């Protein structure tokens, strides 16, 4: 008797599930389960922070939870490869960064973001800035370049790993000005903050970083920004000149970026829906406030623009790496 009741109950539950499933089966039901967002760097960094923020906002739009998973390793190679290797059903997405463009030129992996991803959107671009100690003898960016050109020993902290995007931007600047990019003594560091600290302590002369990362030390009067590499002044530091203005290097546009990518071959409808959700998140007041306060540059690059942006960035990266002797 009890057994029969249990069976009936199970039957009715099954029937209810079928009914609900049928009712909620419109023409296109994606997403009907949680989504995973892979971050190729560890918890706490800028990629992690912006990714988590975006995920929290996208959850609202998609009505499904987004699990943020950190897969650090190999300067991001582990995580980037994991995004590309996932099933292209839209249930695995990830945050990709400039670093993903360095693996093939340096011979680390065959992975290429232009080929191995479904490109959803780039939501952040940051320009590299050249920062010196407050009491440095270099008053302008031209002073610095003159010194490098004359063969003087100038110790430059790359503000991150050797061959990172800051060093690429600086190398491209030197090349553009007809200076051998190998002339300065490059000193790698475990990130921007250790690089800046080393400079304040007197270990190096110049640090390549972003204005946001140097903000507290600029405010403390310990360091001084010389210029931002590129053609756009930072809205938070409108007094810092660009290299386009002070050197006439107008061709230089290389910047570091972060974007949401999915494995190659995601169906069009799913990609559109994802892109919509990213746009809603990136357009929200919360996200803009967050990016402004943290000093991350807001960007929105999609579609044709994104394709050309990524291929331009990829070839610049390869050139830069070759110039500083890291590309094979």
């Amino acid at each position, binding site marked *: 008797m009890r057994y029969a009741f249990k069976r009936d109950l199970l039957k009715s539950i099954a029937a209810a599930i079928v009914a609900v499933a049928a009712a909620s089966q419109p023409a296109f039901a994606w997403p009907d389960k949680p989504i995973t967002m892979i971050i190729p760097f560890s*918890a*706490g*960094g*800028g990629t992690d922070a912006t990714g988590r923020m975006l995920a929290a906002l996208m959850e609202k739009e998609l009505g499904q939870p987004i699990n943020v998973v950190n897969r650090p390793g190999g300067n991001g190679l582990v995580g980037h490869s994991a995004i590309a290797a996932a099933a292209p059903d839209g249930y695995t997405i990830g945050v990709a960064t400039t670093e993903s463009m360095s693996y093939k030129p340096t011979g680390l992996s065959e992975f290429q973001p232009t080929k191995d991803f479904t490109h959803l959107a780039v939501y952040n671009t940051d320009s590299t800035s050249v920062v010196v100690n407050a009491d440095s003898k270099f008053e302008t960016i031209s002073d610095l370049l003159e010194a490098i050109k004359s063969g003087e020993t100038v110790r430059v902290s790359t503000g991150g790993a050797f061959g990172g995007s800051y060093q690429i931007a600086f190398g491209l600047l030197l090349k553009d000005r007809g200076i051998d990019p190998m002339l300065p003594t490059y000193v790698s560091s475990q990130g921007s*903050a250790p690089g800046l600290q080393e400079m304040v302590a007197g270990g190096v002369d110049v640090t390549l970083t972003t204005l946001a990362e140097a903000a507290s030390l600029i405010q403390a009067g310990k360091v001084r920004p010389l210029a931002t590499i590129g053609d756009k002044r930072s809205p938070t530091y409108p007094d810092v000149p660009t290299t386009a203005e002070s050197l006439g290097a107008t061709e230089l546009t290389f910047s570091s970026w972060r974007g949401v990518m999915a494995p190659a071959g995601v169906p069009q409808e799913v990609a559109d829906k994802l892109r919509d959700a990213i746009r809603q998140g990136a357009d929200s007041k919360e996200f803009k406030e967050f990016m402004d*306060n943290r000093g991350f540059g807001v960007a929105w690059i999609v579609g044709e623009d994104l394709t050309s942006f990524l291929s331009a960035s990829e070839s610049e990266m390869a050139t830069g790496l070759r110039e500083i002797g*890291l590309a094979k």
Partner: protein
Amino acid sequence: MLSEVIANILTTQTIIAIIGAAIFGMFMGAIPGLTATMATALLVPVTFFLDPVPAIATMITAVAVAIFAGDIPGCLLRMPGTPASAAYTDEAYQMALKGDAKKALGIGLLSSSFGGLFATAVLVFVAPSLAEFAVRFSSAEYFWLVVLGLSCAAGIGASDPLKGLAMLMLGLAVSMVGMNNNAGIPRFTFGEMALLDGVSLIPMMVGMFGISEILRYASNSKRDFGDPIRSTGSAIRTSAAIIARYPVQLLRGSALGTVVGALPGAGADIAAWMSMGISKSRSKTPAKFGSGHPEGLVEAGAANNSSLASAWIPALVFGIPGDSITAIVIGVLYMKNLNPGPELFTTNAPQLYSLFAIFVIANLIMIPVGWAAIHGGSFITRIPRRIIMPCILLFCILGSYSINNSTFDIAIMLFFGVLAYFLEEAGFPIAPAILGVVLGPMLENYFVTTMTSSGGDIFAFVSRPLAAVIALLLVSVWSIPLIWRLRQKGSASITRS
């Protein structure tokens, strides 16, 4: 201003935030494989919906509590939660085996709380000048500091210093795996992508401490926790009484932790290991170390928490993070318009002092919350070990996996677990190997950085006055005991003749 500070703190939101964060931090810290860094990262989206003061309060409280809570699995299961707590895991675990688990944890709790309060006092009164001092350290100074840390720790837990040194070298060798070197070139990865980031520390640590203990239990199932009756009663008073016996150690640990923690390139790991080493070398009973002796626990426990609190000094004054936790917090400070920098100390004074007050509250609330967790956790000592051991294995696997979400890390854990079992059976201590892996990358990084920026001039290591002073300190650490021993030998041979 005082009224403003009190008004900032005595809001429902702040009080709920502090209590919630304390419980959350306790939970995150006590579960092996979940770390204080993860706790902080998970709190970031929450802080977005809070006012500035409660937002930062959640982070301060969660971190302070989580770091202490990391000692609980270390003491009860021999699974250290952080590299810093690995310095005294064995000492605490030996106490637990003797039946003194609650006492060991009580000592850890009270000395952590004291260390945190000590560093807070320093933070309040001399933060800007200590930060000015800290940013003078360049890679040459840090290089010597790392060597100092390595030499302090070589003797920890080793009855035979040579075996300790061998394990340190093993750790340094393991630390060379991966591409996180200055040139960014993969080394000893054998084409395995999972090794590009090096051997993950937490799985290795969990394997060497936890798995080896499980294996030892499997081969000799008589090892059980000591009579638990001895650990009941008012253990907190007993713990306090033990700490009171070592006031010098408590102060020395707190002071060392505060100074080393304020150096953004050094941090809690070096502080805990250094103070453990100092404690042993200055102890009247160094032979008792490694057998469940509370002296080192007092000093290293205080150093661990004080260094974490003083890591806020360069973070608040110059926006320079000392570790991954302060890096996350700096981000939140920016979001809340409490931009770090000297101006924070002048223009935002009421809010800053509210933060200071929260540091004090966090280090005090730690005691009741921690005490509850110790009570809850120490039931483990009453469960027969044949039941608890499989559960530990499960936690080891989960913890190792969750760090990088990688199954490869489980293999790392098993490999080092088996290795450590055989090494320990042969009398090799495992703690120095962990230290080698922690400090190896720093040693290499600071060495290569100094060499590249000086253009290969080896004298760059002593040409800066500060670097020369630390180098001299190092030489004296090594030579004074040696000279002392030689002179003793000399006088002994004279009396004999």
